[in-house]
């Protein structure tokens, strides 16, 4: 089994083309190391995910660099695993080194899946939309769509349970699967013939990545609840093709284009070694050419079409830069028991508040979250314009006059003027 990696090419450049495996190895090592480190601070819950990622970015030493390594490393990894597959194809590995070939193709699928699940974890606006896209892609699947969506989300809608699922898949299932593939591949065939060049190539790519990441921090959009309607979410580079492709495909066909066809392509490449000897090259070549063509043209179109929206994207970038310079605000954690005690000290909420308002705005007016809906806190509300006691009474009668939207409703039919005044008087004195 100990076939040398290269026995027919040994001149200059072509020898260096044999080093994609080494680069993939080093990039995988970087993903594992940085991923383990990020897990020391990250909390997978919709309440804390964005806060903990902000903390890593703003407060923890080297946090921004390590997160950037993980973020951009995942994009470089996808690229180099793909190049590795292409290189093995030209070496006809599907013929004489089947396990190496299948392992590389499966690795490509795993790396993309790991990137897809990891993308949701910071729970910023981008992450939220990527969860939305995953939801849409799943629900459009033929036959199994309804159940696939249900299982991916862990319920009817995107919630903190969805985030936990993506987290578990990302940090437990994917790494074990990737390690499994590596072990399986190296148990079958080890060739150290080109080891030095592989490590040199891996080292060079690592240095390039390290410098890139020192210059460019990984993006982090606004938290989901602070997202404005004009926010334009853009996926990471390895998913731009999918993002652009979905623009051209109507409705339910998106799942075919985004999930079924790529899955089919990977499936065909996996079984390539077992196809007839004459069919392997044309079929594999066609699939790879299709992938290369789709990914490059779609990615190119994605960048081109963003030229039209560059003003908004530039505005978002400026806001993100501004956000980075602002100091980090720790998040208040409170147990229910403490909440009742502190509310006691400011005077408890009126009875009618308990009845109608508490579900959305919380027992102390601290706000709440139900599914994807976030209800604003009422603390310090008096500091905002148009929020005097009189205003709040008027607002309770007609929220739309104050620019509020459903689910905030009018309480004219539920509360008397006196009850509204009692609630308003209590709300204006709430402080953080």
């Amino acid at each position: 089994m100990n076939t040398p990696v290269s026995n027919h090419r040994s001149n200059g450049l072509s020898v260096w083309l044999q080093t994609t495996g080494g680069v993939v190895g080093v990039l995988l090592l970087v993903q594992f190391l940085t991923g383990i480190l990020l897990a020391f601070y990250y909390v997978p819950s919709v309440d804390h995910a964005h806060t903990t990622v902000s903390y890593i970015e703003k407060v923890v030493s080297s946090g921004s660099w390590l997160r950037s390594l993980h973020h951009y490393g995942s994009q470089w990894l996808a690229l180099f695993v793909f190049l590795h597959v292409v290189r093995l194809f030209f070496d006809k590995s599907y013929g004489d080194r089947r396990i190496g070939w299948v392992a590389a193709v499966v690795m490509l699928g795993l790396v993309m899946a790991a990137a897809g699940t990891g993308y949701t974890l910071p729970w910023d606006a981008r992450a939220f939309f990527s969860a939305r896209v995953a939801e849409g892609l799943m629900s459009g699947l033929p036959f199994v769509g309804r159940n696939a969506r249900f299982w991916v989300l862990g319920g009817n809608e995107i919630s903190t349970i969805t985030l936990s699922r993506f987290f578990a898949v990302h940090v437990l299932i994917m790494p074990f699967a990737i390690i499994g593939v590596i072990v399986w591949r190296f148990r079958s065939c080890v060739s150290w013939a080109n080891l030095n060049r592989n490590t040199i190539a891996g080292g060079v790519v690592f240095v390039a990545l390290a410098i890139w990441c020192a210059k460019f921090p990984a993006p982090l959009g606004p938290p989901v609840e602070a997202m404005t309607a004009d926010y334009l979410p853009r996926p990471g580079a390895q998913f731009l093709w999918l993002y652009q492709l979905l623009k051209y495909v109507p409705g339910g066909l998106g799942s075919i284009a985004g999930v079924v066809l790529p899955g089919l392509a990977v499936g065909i490449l996996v079984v390539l070694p077992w196809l007839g000897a004459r069919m392997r090259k044309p079929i594999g070549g066609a699939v790879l050419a299709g992938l290369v063509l789709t990914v490059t043209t779609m990615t190119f179109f994605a960048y081109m079409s963003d030229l039209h929206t560059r003003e908004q994207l530039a505005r978002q970038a400026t806001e993100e830069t501004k956000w980075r310079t602002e100091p980090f605000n720790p998040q208040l954690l409170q147990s229910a028991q403490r909440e009742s005690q502190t509310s006691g000290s400011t005077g408890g909420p009126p009875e009618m508040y308990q009845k109608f308002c508490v579900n959305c705005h919380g027992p102390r007016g601290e706000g709440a979250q139900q599914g994807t809906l976030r209800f604003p806190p009422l603390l310090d509300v008096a500091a905002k314009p148009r929020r005097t006691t009189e205003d709040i009474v008027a607002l309770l009668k007609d929220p739309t006059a104050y620019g509020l939207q459903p689910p905030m409703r009018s309480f004219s039919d539920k509360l008397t003027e006196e009850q509204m005044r009692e609630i308003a008087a209590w709300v204006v004195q709430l402080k953080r």
Partner: protein
Amino acid sequence: MRYEPRITQMNTHTDQISKSRRSFLGLLPLGVLAGVFASIGGAAFRFLRPRLSAPSEQWLDVAALSELQGPQPLAKKIVAEQISGWAVTTDEHNIFVLPQKNNQVLSTICPHAGCEVSWEQSTNRFACPCHDSYFTADGSRISGPSPRGLDALPTRVQDGKLQVQYRVKEDGETHA
């Protein structure tokens, strides 16, 4: 066949060169791995280094001075905010106010092992439930393994209210 000796000689020579080259190159993969580990490892050390939370300068209300009467230590609760990394938590702490000693405030944390002492009415002393340390009504040590008496917390009077600062030192003990 005539050239055979020369060829052998040349081969030995190149063998020697490539041997030393190989032993040098053999270290290369290790060097690259060491470089990756060292750069990420250095960042990891800074990344994981624990952060000391600054001692809270906040003055916390204990009670109105008018309530603080009587011959015995009064058990009170205060709620202190603590910043731990990305989170602010509100922690409830028990304290004793000594109206007989100019409203001095004692921490209930036993200086020995950190259990919470309680006031024993019958024997007129503080008792630690864990290792039987005992303290007088003003907090000085009577007996048991505790190295010293109960710690006093900094206090002040503001607007007729007794206020206290609750601090946690680096070694986990309360107050300075």
